[in-house]
């Protein structure tokens, strides 16, 4: 294998990430979504006694997990060179969570 061939192979590998990771992210998203829907239908089914607050915490955690997966894989945030995107999104999320925390505080106390 000449130097040039090696170089183009490396290059090709680098450029074409391939659909595998993206399809994997899709499968995970489907599973997390299905889990959330199933948890809620199970809670509402006759004869089950699950604490509602627990199920709510559970499905919100699933949503946060799914959001992180989609941001990392589909929106390429896991790739290098995404320092500023991470800063911008964290800034937005901090303000968003402040607003949500204030609303919860207002309702509960």
């Amino acid at each position, binding site marked *: 294998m000449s130097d040039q061939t090696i170089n183009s192979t490396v290059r090709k590998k680098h450029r074409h990430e391939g659909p595998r990771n993206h399809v994997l992210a899709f499968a995970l998203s489907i599973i997390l979504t299905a889990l959330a829907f199933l948890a809620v239908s199970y809670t509402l089914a006759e004869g089950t006694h699950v604490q509602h607050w627990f199920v709510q915490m559970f499905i919100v955690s699933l949503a946060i997990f799914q959001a992180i997966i989609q941001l990392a894989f589909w929106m390429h945030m896991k790739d290098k060179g995404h320092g500023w995107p991470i800063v911008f999104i964290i800034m937005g999320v901090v303000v968003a969570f402040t607003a*949500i925390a204030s609303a919860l505080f207002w309702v509960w106390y």
Partner: protein
Amino acid sequence: MSNLTHADPHGHGLPPEGPLERATLEGRNKITLFWLFLGAECVLFGTLFATFIALRNSTLGGPTGSDLFDLILVAWATIILLVSSLTSVFAVQAMHSHQVGKMQLWLVVTVLLGIAFAALEIYEFQHYIHMEHTFVSSAFGTSYYSLVGFHGAHVMFGVFWITTLILQIMKKGLTTVTAPKVYVASLYWHFIDVVWVFIFTVVYLMGIMG
């Protein structure tokens, strides 16, 4: 690569083997600053979520979330949007391997799924209005339609945006000018899907649980 137009005569760009959307400084800046816009969108939706969470039980004697929402309908909307996010990934991947026809096809599929989602939402809103759950019926109604309607408006804007991109690429081809636009539109589309994840969880699933 040789059949591509490189609008980068001064050589600011990366070597041509990098992704096309990052070939010029303008393209790279466009992508980075689009993330600033997405950060601002987090704030917008965050405050709408905060309002909804605070007012979700203020139904003023009208129908509640558990009276209105239907798990099957929400599941369909979720699947449609999730699949459309995947098809926009495929479009960007086709762009990275310079298969313009394939990219356009996946973009068309994304747009069609976006239209299906919007149609389902219009049907849903109409159904609720017949059940006396309107924008002015209660604080729950106002906060619900503000949040979910704003998301639906984002979907419709995305449909319009990606459609115009498809038409522009038909005319101008895939270049270092048009490639960042496709990439940024796909970021926008994924972001809309991420917001929907929180909407189906907080508005619908938690609403159904009461």
